[in-house]
């Protein structure tokens, strides 16, 4: 909530001219949700400190945000009044606009002069912690001193907070420092208090001019500054990146996609091989498999079901069934449903597929899923895929004993999956076979595993 700028360059009070703020006064500027005060704790020729203090109104913060229907309690008790965030960037641009724009009526020669400054931020939230903070500021030449805090010293087991008391030292023109802070404060926080649109790209280009394109973390900075909104980030990166930078980034994301696509394509191949013409995708999510199935005319009737209404809306948005020609439209249907309730709409299909679905259910609830799928829906063919827990050791980022996804309720080894599948097949009169999915490790198997049930 506090940003101080200190210089000891003689005469230090020149800072007042640079900032266009009188050292003997307290000045206040209005912000969207509150105000900011500018005052000088110290103003001598030897040392001068200008302080920018946020005065965010916590009640108005909530009211201004009242349009959305997201009534999470978190919204009401939050750290915004106490931290340096996009509110601080907003305050910088309101309080120090003259300086940031590089104007100084009385002493114009100061504008481009590199001056030694010490900047203190109290407190700065950094998603990603100290390493990331250093990664953002050090390449720009700042000397970074950081003090971190426990979440609650009375409960050391809760670990460290994401808040830091940050001291930055550098010799630079003030306008450059202000512009860099303007961009990097919300980048550290990884959040914005306002709607982010095209205009945000312009701001990034303007304030980032001359330093962002050579910054080694420019991609991350760009993404975070644009709130990780992919289309905006892509647009901005195209402007910032040099030609040779681009392919690397795209190649990486392509590799990531490959495993999931492989799973889906394998499922589709099996369905084609089995000469299936009607399929129900149980847990269709955003409809990736549905789209693949639509590409093949062999599938005459495709039903996508998911428990998440939000995911279904995305699927509907992607598949646009309403806009398809009638023949195509009649092939596909999306419904909101659940795998723990009996549902007549799921019956009468030749095949049912559950791609990476079962691990999202608490194990005791699988009994209900089994009946819904194998007893009531009862397609001739059922394909179930799930992750292979044995393969987890291959993922470096995954600590032992944790799951690949925060919503996974269990992850099975191949033996566990086989035991389950055999029991289900026996109980409901199916024959089951198994295969690994993805690049197979000799000892560990594939990253995922697939069971094919037939009756």
């Amino acid at each position: 909530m506090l940003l101080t700028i200190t210089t000891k360059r003689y005469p230090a009070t020149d800072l007042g001219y640079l900032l266009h703020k009188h050292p003997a006064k307290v000045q206040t500027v209005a912000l969207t949700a509150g105000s900011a005060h500018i005052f000088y704790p110290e103003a001598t020729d030897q040392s001068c400190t200008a302080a920018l203090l946020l005065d965010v109104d916590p009640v108005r913060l909530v009211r201004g945000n009242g349009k959305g229907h997201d009534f999470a309690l978190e919204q009401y008790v939050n750290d915004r009044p106490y931290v340096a965030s996009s509110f601080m960037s907003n305050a910088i641009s309101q309080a120090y606009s003259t300086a940031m724009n590089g104007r100084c009526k009385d002493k114009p020669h100061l504008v481009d002069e590199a001056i030694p400054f010490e900047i203190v931020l109290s407190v700065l939230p950094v998603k990603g912690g100290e390493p990331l903070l250093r990664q953002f500021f050090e390449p720009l030449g700042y000397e970074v001193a950081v003090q971190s805090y426990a979440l609650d010293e009375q409960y050391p087991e809760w670990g460290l907070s994401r808040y830091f008391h940050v001291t930055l030292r550098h010799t630079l023109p003030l306008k450059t420092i202000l512009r860099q802070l303007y961009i990097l404060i919300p980048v550290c926080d990884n959040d914005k208090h306002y709607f982010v649109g095209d205009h945000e790209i312009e701001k990034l280009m303007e304030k980032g001019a001359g330093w962002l394109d050579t910054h080694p973390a420019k991609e991350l900075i760009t993404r975070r500054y644009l709130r990780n909104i992919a289309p905006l980030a892509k647009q901005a990166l195209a402007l910032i990146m040099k030609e040779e930078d681009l392919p690397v980034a795209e190649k990486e994301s392509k590799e990531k996609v490959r495993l999931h696509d492989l799973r889906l394509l394998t499922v589709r191949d099996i369905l084609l091989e089995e000469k299936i013409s009607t399929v129900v995708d149980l847990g269709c999510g955003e409809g990736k498999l549905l789209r693949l199935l639509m590409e093949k005319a062999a599938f005459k009737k495709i039903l996508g079901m998911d428990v998440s209404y939000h995911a279904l809306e995305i699927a509907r948005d992607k598949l646009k069934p309403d806009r398809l020609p009638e023949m195509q439209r009649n092939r596909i249907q999306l419904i909101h449903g659940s795998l723990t309730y009996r549902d007549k709409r799921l019956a009468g299909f030749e095949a049912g597929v559950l791609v990476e679905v079962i691990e999202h259910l608490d194990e005791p609830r699988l009994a209900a899923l089994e009946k819904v799928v194998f007893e009531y829906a009862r397609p001739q063919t059922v394909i179930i895929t799930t992750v292979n827990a044995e393969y987890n050791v291959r993922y470096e980022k995954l600590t032992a004993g944790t799951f690949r996804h925060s919503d996974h309720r269990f992850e099975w080894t191949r033996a566990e999956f086989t035991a389950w599948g055999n029991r289900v097949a026996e109980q409901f009169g199916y024959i089951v076979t198994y295969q690994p999915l993805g690049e197979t490790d000799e000892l560990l198997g594939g990253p995922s595993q697939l069971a094919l049930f037939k009756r």
Partner: protein
Amino acid sequence: MSRRNRKLSHISIPELSLVMLIGPSGAGKSTFARQFFKPTEIISSDVCRGLISDDENNQAVSADAFEVVRFIAAKRLKLGLLTVIDATNVQPESRKEWIKLAREYHVLPVAIVLNMAEKVCQERNTLRADRNFGSHVIPQQIAQLRRGIRYLREEGFRHVFELHSPEDVAQLETITRTPLYNNKKDEHGPFDIIGDVHGCYDELCTLLDTLGYQVDKEKATLISAPVTTNAEGYTRFRKPVFVGDLVDRGPKSPQVLRLVMNMVGNGLALCVPGNHDAKLLRYLNGKNVQLRHGLEQTVAQLAGETPEFLESVKLFLDGLVSHYVLDDGKLVVAHAGLKESMQGRGSGGVREFCMYGETTGETDEFGLPVRYNWALEYKGKAMVVYGHTPVPEATWLNNTIDIDTGCVFGASLTALRYPERALVSVPALEQYAVPARPIGYNAASVLSIQQQYDHVLDIEDFTGRQRLETRYGHPITIREENSIAALEVMSRFAINPKWLIYLPPTMSPAETSQAAGMLEHPAEGLQYFRETGITKVICEEKHMGSRAVVIVCKDESVAVNRFGVEGEGNGVVYTRTGRPFFTEKEMEQVFISRINNALISTGFYDTFETDWVCLDAELMPWSAKAQALLQNQYAAVGTAASQALPVVVDALQQAVKHNVPAEALLEKYTRRLEQAGNYVKAYRQYCWPVNSLDDYKLAPFHIMATEGRTYFDKDHEWHMSAIKNICAGDEQLLLATPYLIVETGNEASEKEAISWWERLTAAGGEGMVIKPFHFVSKDEKGLVQPAVKIRGKEYLRIIYGPEYDAPENLERLRGRKLSGKRSLALREFSLGLEGLERFVNKAPLQLVHQCVFGILALESEPVDPRL
């Protein structure tokens, strides 16, 4: 004779029928219909032509118009409403469609023929400007009508009336509607419904004797029936109702017939026909039937009977009505049961179903047809009592019960007492026959058929817009968008629905206090109840933990038998949104067994005559369940504030020292620093580390239900003291809640409550809850809030933020609105109670789950979570 004589002044039709007006254009059908039927009962093809094409005479849209007529007619018939089709209907093929529709809905088709002279029709049409079709049309229609009129009975009409002239029509005064024979809704019982007797006369007499009837066994007559005093205080004679299959296989079919015929003939009993009775009738009528399946015995036994007796048997059997709808539609008795869409209807299909049930078309390994169990899908309101299929034990399934316990096969003869729902059985004296298929074949599971069926509930019963009736409050509507949200939460996070019999309601705070520095104060809570006319309330300390519902079974077999849950331990602890409280199953089970031990050692199970209990409670510490919220929100805000603010205050002090006029800011931020400190102090009150079970505290405050009953008729003092007794069984884990009983309007008593609250909150307590003394309280508008909470000043800091009590903030926060929260609390409260009532009354799980699902759906309504 299908064509009635010419002079009719009264005709009578069944109250539920599909009436077809038949006659050429201009015969006066619409006028006739308007004269004798309600406008809403008449569906006219001309009107439908108009509705879809703006022209009532547009013949080009006939096909579509008839689709509309059919659609409306089908909806009406489904609801059981008499319907009149106003169209020419002169061709047999058009009538065939309507006969088919009548059959589909099991209503009787009635034909009223307006067979007018051509001249009459032509004259009427020329008077109408809009009817300018060719003159050939009417003669053609008349010809078609007259060709087919003789065959109306063969087409399937049960009632045909013919009118030949305007004079005939003028002479007709009334069309009366007669109830169907099966309609005995005005008979309210009490009844004793008796299963398949199959000639077991001795057992029948013993059963009747056990039920309190006096029978002259020699003469096969009833001497007297027992009396029962009903809820309104009236004394009524009980009446036996036989589900049919009186005869065959057993030793004394003629005696059984004689007794039942006597009783039914004197109006002392009711009887519906079974398939064996029907077959005997066919035999007696001289039809060619095979003497098998026990009929051979009956025939042999009847050999010595007089022709008069045989004649009376024939008359009796012929007069039996397929099924009865009794007691305002609350009870249906049919031999093989009856699905909802057929109840109270009359058709060959209904009769067939009543006597034989439904089969799948397959045959089993014994060569017998595989029965389709209609009761599995039964969702009707009426209780259905039936027999036909012998079962090892009469058990409830979706409010239906098969009471054929195979007496003739050596098991027992069973009666169901209605409305008591009690079963009374007498054992068979011997085994008179061997069943072709073993009784109870396929019953491999330890779970009842209902419990097996309840493994997976049908999504249809919960999604979309739902309207739920509740016994403690108004009917509650669940909107579709809310049930969508509930489906997701229920499917992804909730525990087994078999455990999930109750969810606690949300609780509203008292009206906002206007006292300085306060947002909530007991004065407003007491005022609320005083103003609703409640003179006695209970104040209970509000614990700061997480709401938890605890179900404990005495042992795992109770979990299996009563809850139908296998292999999930002997109890469960879940949150107010139905999620498991403990992530580790083992921990949960140890927790449950601690409470179980306390229940056993304090004699709870014996005192309450139960082997399970459902408790509504608070489970502490708060940090055990809300760990993520605490760390990510509360502690985070606390760190940010308490680290940033000293730096700010320091900077401002420096500025002031250098004569910068920042005193006001310094004062403001110094106060904020202090508030931040209080905030951290506030949330820390409710955190303590949990390393083992001993670190938990459970404070139950309601005993919700035990076997066969709920405790909503008990006052809160009773609940508190019953719970105190349990808590004595494990004082380490269980916590009895301190409380105070207060008389509203009594100044001293109210003052005591207020100062108690002040003491509680000053010591760091969350606050208190004020409840009406009685569990369920009503005023003239309906239910009164079952509880309001009064939270402490410091506790509210963690809800409204560190600086909420700054005067400028408090002023704005006082604008909060409570009505949404209040209404939600009442709806959730009455649904929660309803669900438990249904559960203890052994309703099918889907009816219990509807309530629980409804509460979860209501929880997705947007309400300020700070309330």
